[in-house]
Structures are given as C-alpha cells and as structure tokens.
C-alpha cells in the first residue's frame, strides 16, 4: 500500500458498468515525510474521501479485492483514511 493526498476528481458518465456508483479521485502520491513524489494517479474511492484527505490505497490486481465485486477493473483503490502519521 502507498499513501496519497486527494487533490481532485474525475467524472466519467460513460464507463464500464461495474464501475458505476464509484467515485474516482485524483491522488498525489506521498513519500517519505509525507512529501509529494510528483506522481499522480486516479483511484477508486471506497471510504468517501474528499479533497485534502490523506489516504492509503492498494494497487495492481489487489486493488480489485477491495471492491464489492472482484470483477471490477481497478488498479488503484483507496481503502483507508490516514488520521495520524509518525
């Protein structure tokens, strides 16, 4: 899993049926000391995250395991909200 900050969202009315109902959020990937790495990606939201939230997300094939139906194409899924970080 990696950590990222929600910086926006993507809207797509025409999409694969299994993705219907999910929000797609833009994440800025954070690295050491929660500093932005420069990498950005789009992830499926399962925790109702919003702009500014720091979240953790699963990637690759494992990202589909976090969704209701495994046969949903996601290569990045937000699974938790980071409340504190040391």
């Amino acid at each position, binding site marked *: 899993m990696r950590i990222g900050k929600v910086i926006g969202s993507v809207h797509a009315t025409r999409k*694969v049926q299994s993705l219907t109902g999910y929000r797609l959020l*833009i994440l800025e990937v954070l690295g050491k000391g929660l500093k932005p790495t420069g990498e950005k990606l789009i*992830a499926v939201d399962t925790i109702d995250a919003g702009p500014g939230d720091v979240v953790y997300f699963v990637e690759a094939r494992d*990202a589909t395991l976090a969704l209701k139906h495994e046969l949903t194409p*996601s*290569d990045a899924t937000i699974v938790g909200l980071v409340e504190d970080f040391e």
Partner: protein
Amino acid sequence: MFIGKVVGSVWATRKEERLKGFKFLIVQHYEVDGTPLRDHHICVDLVDAGVGDMVLVVRGSSARQTEKTKEKPVDAIIVGVVDRIDLEK
C-alpha cells in the same frame, strides 16, 4: 488508473484467438492537469471511445477483471470516457 487521449487505432487481422472482436486504440498519456506526456499504450476499448476522446485507462492484471477481458491476454483497457476533471490546485 491514468488519463489519456485517444490518438489512433490499431488493426490486426492475424492475432491471438482470444483477442478477436476487440477494438484496439492508441492512447497517449496525459497529466491530470492536461499536459501531454510521451508515453503511449495500446488499449482494448470497452466503452466505444473514439479518436480525440479523453479516457480512463486501467493497466496490468486489473485489466483482466471484467467480463469481456477475463482470462484474455490483455494488459490495458479503456474503462471510461472523461467528462470533467476537477483539480484542487
């Protein structure tokens, strides 16, 4: 997922049996702020996208997690046509 623009299509009559019936589009990577990148991917189109459309692409083994691409030799699929991008900064 990443965002990209459809810039062309690929036709191949002679291909792997399980790829028959798919439409292949060439997608150029874009930054979420609209900056074009150099990287391109050939993607299986699942949403009837066309040249010029901004699309959402899923890569890797996750691309096989759909009814149509399940257990097929596919590593990039177009899963949506982008209507709008909201960026905080």
